[in-house]
């Protein structure tokens, strides 16, 4: 998985330095220099002293000795060029990162659906070849439909129309495990340059060439579209103010020295060259020269964390955020639920229920199954038994039966969803007791998942599967609270469950039974109270809230709409990253005593429902 602690990159890399040297000269264009008032003044001074030098060299009697003027002029040009070089270096480092990503989107042949052909024909292997034409990827346009087969690169950013496939997105996320992409829902976006490992996909292209978010980021890092952050604007104001003060201090020196010479009858007035040199010494050239480099560096830090900020404002806002809206599943709780309680049916001993539940789960390798074994052992000291020795036959979970279990001797033990188990019991001639149904409803109402256990025709009881709060998350929220950040849990659970989990996780507030509208409303109300709000989202229905939030991190796996609405994109698609982003913004974390790291979670794991609030 990727995380904040990336390998430190070397400061000087040959190609970057060479490109920066060229850029430094190109940036002398006064139209670009005017963006930075301090360095603009230095450039004017350079031009002025150069003119004085030419005057002195031609006429032989200039403002000061020609050699001296030349030295001052050269020094000033060096100052300007160095500032430009520093800026170009900072941009170059960002560009290098972008280039690494851009390699992934090298031109590949794409199989495009012919005009007028229906995408449905692609489902049939036989008809495919006739409906497709081969084109280079740059000629793909918004709305084109392409077919990508196993082993091929996806030619452009797009939305899956048909098919399910595992996709290797390591080129973008650095995560080696493949991820599942399928049509419909919030997991339907694919990124150009990623590789289809199995099966096939029909993809509708959602961007024109040069408009993919990668391209936008490159344009931004290259400085063409970068907006100044509020802090940069404030600093510009201060620097401009100081520059004017020092300009006056220098300009007034001319009458001062003329008066001094006239009045005392000795010495000579200060030369214009000396005054220009003094001005450049006085004005804050160092900070003025490095300012834009600093601004770019902030964005670069995000890029190193595999987060692409689409505006400098967002990076800065990340440092000022004081309310975090966090999706419960995946961020606060593990995606997997764990058995927490055994609720026996009337007339059934809890120990018997535990025994049966454990037997049915012994071969069940899912986290839920294992947690049942562990619970039974913890409650009644039931040891795990060897199933082979007892001649048991394991019945695996299938989407049709929606149950799993074991056949042991004459016993047929099953555990599963309520209606599936009810059908099983009734088929075996039993009856599903109303008391158990009440227990099931109670458990469900509390937001936990009920798992019914039956032995043949007899219903034994219910296993409660509950959400598990991630280890260390409570401490992390405490840490955030100490630095004045309020955490709010967003969940689709009912208020009762939400309150319980909120209390366990130690969040400051929660929004239960959240709808996109409620989420948007909540962001607005926090903002009205003067808070800056950060959130993550990946679904199209998150887009309004993402657009409203001050820091809106869209998951790279999310829909195009979500990515457009957010102002950052997390390439790892890890909702927990939000905490890290805020820490980067506040520049805390690695250097502070309380080291905060992303809670261990693989970057892209396909969890059904994990992104639903």
């Amino acid at each position, binding site marked *: 998985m990727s995380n904040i602690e990336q390998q430190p990159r070397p400061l000087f890399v040959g190609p970057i330095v060479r490109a920066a040297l060229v850029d430094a000269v190109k940036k002398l264009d006064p139209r670009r220099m005017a963006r930075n008032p301090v360095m603009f003044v230095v450039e004017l001074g350079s031009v002025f002293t150069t003119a004085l030098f030419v005057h002195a060299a031609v006429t032989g009697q200039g403002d000061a000795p020609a050699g001296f003027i030349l030295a001052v002029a050269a020094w000033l040009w060096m100052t300007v060029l160095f500032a430009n070089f520093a800026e170009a270096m900072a941009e170059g480092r960002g560009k290098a990162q972008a280039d690494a990503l851009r390699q992934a989107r090298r031109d590949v042949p794409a199989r495009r659906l012919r005009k007028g052909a229906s995408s449905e024909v692609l489902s049939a292997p036989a008809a495919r070849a006739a409906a497709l034409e081969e084109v280079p990827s740059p000629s793909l346009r918004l709305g084109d439909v392409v077919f990508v087969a196993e082993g091929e690169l996806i030619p452009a950013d797009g939305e899956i129309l048909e098919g399910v496939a595992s996709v290797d997105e390591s080129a973008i996320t650095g995560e080696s495990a493949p991820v599942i992409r399928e049509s419909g829902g919030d997991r339907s976006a694919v990124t150009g340059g990623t590789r289809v490992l199995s099966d096939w996909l029909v993809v509708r292209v959602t961007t024109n060439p040069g408009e993919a978010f990668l391209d936008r980021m490159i344009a931004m890092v290259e400085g063409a579209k970068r907006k100044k952050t509020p802090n940069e604007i404030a600093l510009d104001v201060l620097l401009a103010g100081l520059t004017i003060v020092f300009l006056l201090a220098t300009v007034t020196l001319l009458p*001062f020295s003329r*008066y001094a010479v006239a009045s005392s009858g000795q010495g000579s007035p200060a030369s214009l060259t000396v005054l220009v040199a003094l001005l450049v010494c006085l004005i804050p050239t160092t900070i003025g020269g490095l300012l834009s480099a600093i601004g770019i560096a902030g964005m670069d830090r995000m890029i190193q964390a595999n987060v692409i900020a689409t505006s400098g404002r967002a990076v800065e806002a990340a440092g000022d955020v004081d309310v975090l809206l966090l999706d419960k599943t995946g961020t606060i709780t593990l995606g997997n639920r764990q058995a927490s309680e055994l609720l026996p049916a009337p007339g059934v001993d809890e120990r018997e229920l535990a025994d049966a539940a454990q037997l049915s789960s012994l071969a069940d390798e899912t986290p839920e199954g294992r947690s049942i074994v562990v619970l039974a052992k913890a409650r009644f000291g039931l040891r795990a038994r060897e199933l082979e020795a007892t001649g048991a036959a394991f019945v695996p979970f299938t989407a049709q039966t929606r149950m799993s279990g074991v056949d042991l001797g004459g016993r047929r033990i099953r555990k599963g969803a309520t209606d599936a188990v009810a059908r099983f019991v009734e088929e075996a001639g039993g009856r599903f007791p109303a008391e158990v149904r009440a227990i099931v409803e109670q458990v469900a109402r509390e937001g936990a998942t009920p798992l019914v256990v039956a032995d043949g025709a007899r219903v034994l009881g219910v296993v409660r599967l509950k959400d598990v709060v991630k280890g260390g998350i409570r401490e992390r929220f405490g840490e955030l609270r100490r630095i004045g950040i309020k955490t709010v849990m967003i969940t689709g659970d009912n208020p009762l469950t939400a309150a319980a989990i909120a209390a366990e996780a130690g969040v400051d507030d929660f929004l239960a039974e959240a709808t996109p509208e409620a989420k948007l409303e909540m962001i607005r109300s926090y903002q009205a109270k003067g808070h800056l709000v950060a959130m993550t989202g990946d679904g199209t229905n998150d887009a309004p809230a993402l657009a409203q939030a001050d820091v809106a991190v869209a998951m790279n796996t999310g829909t195009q709409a979500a990515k457009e609405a957010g102002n950052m994109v997390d390439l790892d698609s890890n909702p927990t990253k939000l905490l890290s982003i805020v820490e980067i913004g*506040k520049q805390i974390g690695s250097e502070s005593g309380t080291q905060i790291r992303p809670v261990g979670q693989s970057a892209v794991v396909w969890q059904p429902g994990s992104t639903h609030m």
Partner: protein
Amino acid sequence: MTAIAVAQLALFLALLLALARPLGAYLVRVHGGEARLAGRVLGPVERLIYRAAGVRADEDMPWQRYAASVLVFNLAGALALYLLQRAQSALPLNPQGFAAVSPEVSFNTAVSFVTNTNWQAYAGESTMSHLTQMLGLTVQSFVSAATGIAVLFALARGFARQSAEGLGSFWVDLTRATLYVLLPLSVVVALFFVSQGAAQTLAGSVTVHSVQGADQVVSLGPVASQEAIKLIGTNGGGFFNANSAHPFENPTALSNLVQMLSIFLVPAALCFMFGRLVGSEAQGWAILGAMVALFVPLAVAVIAAEQAGNPALGALSVAQQAGNLEGKEVRFGAVGSALFTAVTTSASCGAVNAMLDSFTPLGGLVPMWLMQLGEIVFGGVGSGLYGMLMYAIIAVFVAGLMVGRTPEYLGKKIEAFEMKMASLVILFPAATVLLGTAIACVVPAGTEPLGNPGAHGFSEILYAFTSGTNNNGSAFGGLTASGRFYAVAIGLAMLIGRFWVIVPVLAIAGSLAKQRLVPAGPGTLPTHTPLFVAMLVGTIVLVGALTFLPALALGPIVEHLQQAAR
């Protein structure tokens, strides 16, 4: 520097801190309108004033309205003072029958007293009637000081309040500052001065038959009362032309110490008040610490320079154990005069007890630079602290960016608007001093009234614009300031230096009040630590040095080098 000098400085600072802290606590109550004992005695007077003036005591003015009130009040004050001077010959209480003051000097004096500068382009005892002195000058001494305190009250509310539109009522702040702070302190101090031998009478003058047989006219008047507010309100406009060097203004060494304490008392106490109002006295200590850290080395520099004496005299084998005594009162000596000069120029008081024109070049450089820092080392009542807080905002911003912290000061975010206004506060006074001096250097009207040629003459011009713009009011001497050019130019400089600072300060106060308080966290730069004090001092010294060192180099520094080379 001798042991006696060190002891004097230490005693002065110890007494100052001992008095300022309790006064700071009292100021907090005055600020909130909760003065207990004073409230019982003066409360009816306060309410009577509000009723008579039609002021609502609970009015909450947005910053624009607050600033407009300040400007209107001061404009009216200036106009009244101008008319009073022009008409004094026709008005009562003019025992010596002085004629009307000239238009340009009247303008200059009116502006001077309204802006708390008290630059005096006239000799008080031979120009102003008792009525002008009492009803005009002394009244403005009170209310101009109270204006400074009121603006600071508003700025403190800007920091302390959150999501608020208003900064309080200027009229209420003005009344309370005058009634509960300046008036009681002045009464106490004035009585003390009378006890030391200062004059306090409505008689014009007495003619005495001197020992040598000649008749001498000795001017008298209500001196002690004007003296008290001259110092407490950091005004500096003396009754006599000789100011605090005159034995009827400042009779003894003890009264000299009390004068110095009176100058620093309210500015220091306001630091404690500010700290408490923003919820942490440590913040007040930090600001005061920065002031002391700037004051002590510079005071030591003046004292050392004056104790060292004049090298030209040293070359003639003249013994100077007592230091450079030219232009100094023997009852204060070199140390008492040098320390007083450092005090009066670091606070924007401008009272003088010695002739600065006669100081050594370096002894004259330090007072000039103390003023050029913007009168923020203690500074004027109110104005010193609000000027210092502008620098604190800049220091927080620059330092915060350097170490990657969000620029926040006292829980308020510093953004482009605050930076714009804080930059104006630095820009306008510096530009006025430099441009004013530059113009005076090139026009004959500027160079003709000079008393000395060369570098010393340049120092005289620079000092005049420095003193006027930064509302100090002390004079270097040697320059005849009553001519039309200087009367008008310095008058304008004083206006810019006062009100083009007050308006941006109030704008910042308004912008801060609207913000919510951001709770402090590890991302916040602590602003009560020695580190921050050092950064604040560094910012001030850097900006002050870079702006004025080129000009100072052509004045006192070159003069010092010439003197040393001779």
